């Protein structure tokens, strides 16, 4: 199973085929990523299950399983409802991260096909050990002040990126490198070469962190060469870690939500 979660029900792969029939009013049926659905299930189990129940049908007149949300026809609307709550009800505003909202929307859209108890997140404690050990993530990334700065900071990665996006990065999926983070190479008029990771760019300038971990701002008019690379130097963890280990590592990364 490619999923980084351990699933006791392998039939979950049928979700994409089964999800559409009763969701005709929604925008995105069949477009939810399995990893987000699974992560959403864990968030649901933590925050929503007390009121909505294991099956999403505990509240009278609010059956999440029928796929009909008249006040939230789009995923964005549903995400806003989850985040902002419903005035006058017990559903209060909650400060979910974007990745949690992505997961919750994906899970709720597919709740009738995902037995809640079937999803178990990897072990984040083991995942942290893998981050620091076998995975060697800490040799490039930085978390809460520890580690180098050459690769993107991960202290908030669990809030910034969805579970599926992190999974794709670990698997080295083409396109998973966020374009603004692309490596760049600049050659100054005097021949000095600057390699770094792009932080920001506009028509006339580029801002980057160079391989000496310095913040550098360059005017393009002062360069004789400027190249944006599209490949990441990050290892492909499919060949380094087992499925179970990657599930553990992902579970750890999802715990990194900044200081909040």
């Amino acid at each position, binding site marked *: 199973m490619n999923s980084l979660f351990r699933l006791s029900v392998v039939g979950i792969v049928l979700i994409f085929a089964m999800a559409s029939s009763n969701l*005709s*009013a*929604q*925008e*995105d*049926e069949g*477009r939810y*990523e399995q990893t987000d659905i699974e992560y959403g299930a864990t968030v649901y189990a933590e925050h929503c299950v007390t009121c909505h129940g294991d099956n999403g049908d505990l509240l009278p007149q609010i059956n999440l399983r029928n796929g009909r949300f*008249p*006040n939230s*026809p*789009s*995923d964005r*609307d549903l995400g806003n409802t989850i985040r902002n709550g419903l005035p006058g009800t017990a559903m209060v505003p909650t400060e979910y991260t974007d990745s949690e909202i992505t997961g919750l929307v994906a899970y709720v859209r597919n709740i009738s096909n995902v037995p809640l108890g079937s999803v178990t997140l990897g072990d984040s404690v083991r995942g942290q050990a893998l981050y620091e050990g076998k995975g060697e993530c800490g040799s490039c990334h930085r978390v809460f002040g520890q580690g180098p700065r050459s690769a993107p900071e991960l202290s908030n990665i669990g809030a910034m990126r969805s579970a599926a*996006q992190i999974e*794709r990065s670990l698997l080295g*999926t*083409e*396109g*998973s490198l*966020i*374009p*603004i983070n*692309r490596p760049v190479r600049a050659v100054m008029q005097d021949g000095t070469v600057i390699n770094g990771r792009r*932080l*920001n*760019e*506009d*028509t*006339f300038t580029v801002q980057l962190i160079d391989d000496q971990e310095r913040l550098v701002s360059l005017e393009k008019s002062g360069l004789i060469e400027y190249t*944006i690379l599209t490949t990441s130097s990050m290892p492909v963890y499919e060949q380094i870690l087992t499925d179970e280990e990657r599930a553990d590592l992902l579970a750890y990364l999802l715990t990194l939500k900044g200081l909040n």
Partner: protein
Amino acid sequence: MSPIKVLLLPLLLLIAQNAQAQVTFERILNAADEPHNWLTYSGDYSGNRHSELDQIEPGNVNDLQLKWVFQAQSLEKFEATPLVVDGIMYLTEAPNTVTALDAKLGRVFWRYEYTPSNQSRPCCGRVNRGLAILGETLFMATIDAQLIAIDVVTGQPIWKAAVADPNSGYAMTLAPLIVKDKVLVGVAGGEYGVRGFISAYEVDTGEEAWRFYTIPGPGEPGHETWEGGGDAWAHGGASVWVTGSYDPELNLTYWGIGNPGPDWNPAQRPGDNLYSDSVVALNADTGELEWYFQFTPNDDYDYDSVQIPVLVDLDTRVFSSGKLMLWGNRNGFFYVLDRTTGEFIRGNPFVRVNWASGLDESGRPIETPQPAGATTYPCVGGGTNWYSPSYSPDTELFYVSAWEGCGHVFRPVEVEYLSGQRFLGGRPTYANPGAPGLPSLFRGPINNWTETEGTGAVIAIDPRTGGERWRFNMTDVTTSGILTTASNIVFTGGREGYFYALHAETGELLWRTSLGGMIASGPITYAIDGKQYVTATSGNGLFVFGLRE
């Protein structure tokens, strides 16, 4: 500025001060004769967004300096074009606040804050694009679909007319257009299954004078283009959210019409879906349809055709008619039409296009739908969008803000119409499942629209050939309108926060300044006491520049 114009300006100012705020229809008709003012959304009725002011010119544009800044209280997107009348600026900010300022010093006379209904359902921010003025009255179209008349001196409302019901998804974001004794508006709501319309109101009372539905009802010509016999037409969108133009000689007012709904599922609305994605020419007195031209029949991609109709008179050596309409469309094609008849004259792509291989003799697209999962160009944002283009009669070039190399995958989805709810029928994505989601149209200080998603440009197009004369490329896409002046300067900006002066003949960058926030409206220019000013909104501020003294 030429000596004659310099001498004339103080004289004009004296005349104007005697008649301050009395903006007659004749003055708007002849707005080009008083370039020190900006009397209507596009500067004049032609939609050219071109000024005869020439004091700021390529030789001194580097002497531009900041004169004053107005900080909006709203933190929502600043899409407004100000009006300037005899030294006083009238400006809106989101959602529906009006401010009157001293246009020389930036100091405020009054503010009027209208609180729209919390039932307003704008698709893309509670924006407002500006005002209209006639006599001593300002007119504002509100986000909850009301039309409000405001006293120019006191800033207090005179009357309010209910144009449509916000609970059903109707909204208004455009600047109204004055024609004679009527104020014309159109309704937004194309993402909520509204039935669009343009309507005219008596300026003195707010009484509705006429209404033109942009989707023909049963029994009306064009209704048959909503095939299938259902009620798709009743929820078919075709909204109107950018100000039209007016040809006084023909007494026709021209308006661009928005996308059909649901946006991305044409199977739910078979047929050409008139008059979505069209330009309509209406009798300004009655609202009766004189002609129409549809750019994108049965639209799959949300290619609103709400762009400003740009009216141009060119000699007939190349064109059979000298009375033309130029149109850089969201669908990626540049069109030349005969504005007397609506006849298609010529058209060609101005950015990468693959949804159609070209246009036939009548201007109808030769459609080439891409396979499921493949990328369609332009993207949902279009080859351009609502940003005001400009035409300079001096260079005889058309200038358009363009999005280049931007493509999306469109996946239609069946959607049920529910009143007041979004009615979209899918969501554009990228072909690569590993790609990040669609970047936001709201841009912060970090660029989120890199080379992967598309780039921006100002393109100068020769209407005689449809060919590109020059192009000024930007890293980020652009949301700025364009202003040209008689001194051969193109003023524009972009999401990166730069405000530019380009040479209108060559595209050479003459001057730039960094204002720090995305520019989401079109620049204007005006003059006071013989000194020319040029404005740009950026982030939540309006920045006013003039020459160093």
